[in-house]
């Protein structure tokens, strides 16, 4: 078993301040920096450490036994900013939705909970490794051969994992000596006094020689005068600090009843798949799209049964090589029916574009593609002109473009028209209007063939050189998507009372 134990608030603060003056916000204006960073770190932990069990410990709002014994404990700390607090319920809901065990015990700090859990877990033979995730040094005292300290990556600095040797290297003393060390040196972040006048170097030296605070004071007469005097003056402060710095003050306390008042059971921490019903709406509200994708990747074997990830579409396509075939195709269609079309050209500017091909789709699932060449252009033009004049409802995405291109080549389309891009624009001007985006949004369909795919393996970006087997499905898919969008978009326009505007103002 691999157990990861997390100091909640440490991560929250880190995440919140990571964005500096430009916090991340969702469109409701909520500061989502803390939830974002927190979730990011959770994902990082999951990927790196591959836990089988995990849990998060939170500080309690009420004063702890430490506050009671020393009124100045952590006195210099300011309360968390309001925007940070606003993010907290989201974080705890995220943990819940991810099925991560969380606990907060009145009267205890998160560190104590973590310490209890860590030691209990360490005593179980089936537990191989425990990681304590925190930026704090207080937890370093727990490091042992099974318990490691994990400090998450910060900006460019990668994550640090500290084992016993690591602690010695980083702090200069062994893990079990950390409370003694703090007792001498003091701790600014927790506002613990330590011994006045004893600094890091001295403390390290003393502890290296005498091993512990207690032993040090037993051997006080052996110490040189200047240091001894300071130690004598600061004795009360030293022991008080020691008591507070210790996460588990005495060996008897190791058998202290659980802060949670229930027997310890590591199975509570077991990692299990997320509760998607709770998680997905939360991610949407917070607007965490990329994180959503990463979560899907992590849990790919446990995806929600109805994926909000969209289904793909594949169309049967036929290539019509001669104008006669195209004429035949048009003849099979009822005169007023809707036909979606899509031109494939060499240039984004319609006045400079050359026609390479055109796709038509009159029925869902089926479309045709005509590669247009200059040799038989006169014949093609004839068929197309007939189509252009016919009363078919002509549908396209960004119809204006195709219209201008065709007009350049002597094919002047006549209405009625329906431009799916314009329709989407009227429904909400500020959403992206690309065919791919609209299809995903309105139909839940993900375009299979992308423009870049056309050129894979080719040394050119000249669309005329793209093999027909690639170009045809690509164009056909575009035509079909436009056809499929017609009805839902049309209905949406009706529903929102935009029909009048459409008719009067936009269809030209």
């Amino acid at each position, binding site marked *: 078993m691999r157990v990861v134990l997390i100091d909640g608030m440490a991560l929250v603060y880190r995440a919140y301040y990571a964005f500096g003056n430009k916090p991340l916000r969702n469109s409701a204006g909520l500061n989502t920096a803390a939830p974002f960073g927190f979730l990011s770190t959770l994902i990082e932990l999951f990927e790196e450490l591959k836990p089988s069990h995990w849990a998060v410990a939170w500080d309690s709002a009420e004063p702890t036994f430490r506050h009671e014994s020393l009124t100045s404990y952590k006195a210099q700390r300011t309360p968390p900013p309001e925007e940070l607090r606003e993010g907290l319920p989201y974080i705890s809901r995220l943990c819940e939705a991810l099925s991560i065990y969380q606990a907060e015990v009145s009267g205890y700090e998160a560190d104590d909970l973590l310490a209890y859990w860590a030691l209990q877990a360490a005593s179980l033979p089936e537990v191989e490794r425990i990681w304590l995730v925190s930026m704090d040094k207080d937890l370093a005292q727990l490091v042992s051969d099974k318990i490691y300290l994990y400090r998450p990556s910060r900006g460019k600095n990668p994550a640090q994992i500290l084992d016993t040797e690591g602690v010695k290297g980083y702090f200069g003393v062994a893990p079990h000596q950390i409370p003694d060390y703090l007792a001498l040196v003091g701790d600014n972040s927790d506002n613990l006094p330590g011994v006045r006048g004893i600094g890091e170097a001295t403390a390290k030296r003393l502890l290296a020689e005498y091993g512990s605070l207690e032993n040090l004071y037993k051997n006080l007469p052996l110490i040189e005068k200047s240091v001894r005097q300071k130690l004598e003056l600061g004795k009360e402060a030293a022991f008080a600090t020691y008591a507070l710095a210790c996460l588990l003050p005495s060996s008897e306390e190791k058998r202290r009843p659980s802060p949670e008042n229930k027997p310890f059971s590591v199975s509570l921490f077991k990692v299990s798949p997320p509760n998607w019903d709770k998680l997905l709406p939360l991610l949407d509200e917070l607007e965490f799209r990329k994180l959503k994708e990463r979560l899907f990747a992590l849990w790919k074997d446990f995806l929600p049964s109805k994926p909000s990830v969209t289904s793909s579409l594949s169309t049967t396509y036929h290539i019509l090589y001669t104008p006669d075939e195209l004429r035949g195709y048009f003849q099979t269609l009822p005169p007023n029916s809707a036909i979606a079309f899509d031109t494939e050209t060499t240039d984004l500017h319609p006045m400079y574009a050359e026609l390479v091909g055109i796709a038509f789709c009159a029925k869902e699932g089926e479309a045709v593609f005509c590669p247009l060449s200059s040799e038989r252009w006169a014949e093609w033009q004839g068929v197309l002109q007939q189509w252009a004049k016919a009363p078919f409802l002509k549908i396209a995405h960004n119809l204006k473009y195709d219209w201008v291109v065709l007009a350049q080549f002597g094919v002047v389309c006549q209405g009625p028209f329906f431009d799916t891009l314009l329709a989407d*624009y009227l429904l909400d001007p500020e959403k992206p209007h690309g065919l791919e985006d609209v299809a995903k949004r309105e139909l839940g369909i993900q375009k299979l063939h992308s423009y870049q795919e056309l050129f894979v393996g080719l040394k050119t970006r000249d669309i005329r050189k793209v093999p027909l087997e690639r170009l045809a499905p690509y164009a056909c898919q575009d035509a079909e998507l436009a056809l499929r969008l017609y009805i839902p978009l049309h209905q949406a326009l009706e529903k929102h009372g935009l029909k009048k505007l459409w008719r009067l103002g936009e269809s030209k």
Partner: protein
Amino acid sequence: MEIRGVKVDVRYLKELNLLYEAKLRDLEEEAHKLSGESFNLNSPKQLAEVLFNKLGLPVQRKTPTGQPATDEEALSALVDQHPLVEVLLRYRELYKLRYTYVEGLLQSVHPRTGRVHTTFHQAVAATGRLSSQSPNLQNIPIRTEEGKRLRKAFVASREGWVLLSADYSQIELRIAAALSGDPHMIADFQAGRDIHTSTAQYLFGPVSPLSESEKRRIAKTVNFGIIYGITAHGLVQRLGGGLSRTEAQKLIDTYFMRYPAIKSYIERQIEQVRKCGYAETLLGRRRYIPQINSSNKVQRAEAERLAINTPIQGTAADMIKVAMIRLHKRLPDIPLLLQIHDELLWEVPESEIESIARIIQEEMVEALPLPNQVPIEVEIKVGENWLEMAPLSLS
């Protein structure tokens, strides 16, 4: 419109190009003389070196990369300190004009048609307005002398044909008056008064040290500012000239005393958007503004400005679009060349100017009647090119 394109006088543009090139060289020489150094005027780094190190001018601001700022804002603050600064500003203006506009236009001329074909994007602006690209013909400068010369390049393409421009005068203010129902503003428009002069009269008492044109200019800024949801701070920025924020605020307050319905319209509109989440134009075009309920003050203020401005700008956009369609149907042989903001540009045969102008005016005025009987006015101008146009009055 796109496929027709608009004709530009290429020879004229080429001449202009050479002219600008010469001017730029002159300016460059002058700059070198004034600074005593031959440096590259286009390099911000070298420029900063000369201005701040060599000449010892005070640094206004720093760019994100830590360099002292040499943009227009920074430079205009230094204008009085050294003649070099003025030279630089003019250089920059000409440079932009030349490369972005003159060169840009020359390059956009289509080889086959000999005309400039711009692409109008119908689905980009959130307010419903059209945007123009490659080239962007909607921001050809009109205010500066040099900018005006550019407009001269746009000409009619056939013998005996001229350009006709029709502009909706103060359409946004009229829409604001109509939507708010403000009796004073409506009365001003109905009586055919110049709205800015009218506003000026009420903003400044009879006793005022300012000239008439000054007063009008300020009133105009306030008028347009209100539509965009301006604050006292914004007004100070736009007017400059030592106006204090309290004075600006006083102007705004006086404005609302004269046009109280506008104030209540603004409040109602913001409330409306808060409730339903979007702003609507007269024809029902929507724009969703979710940030109106944001807890972030800055975002919320921005959203409120959008809430006020979108229906106004959007209705103007609606109106022009309807007019364009109606005129397309009614005058199929008269090519519409361009749409720029509230103006439409056609090419018309000279012999038929009057009758065509009448039709255009009629259709534009009737395209989208405004509530509260606010009259819509269309100003028609005719000319050989886009710069030299004379107003056409129709009896």
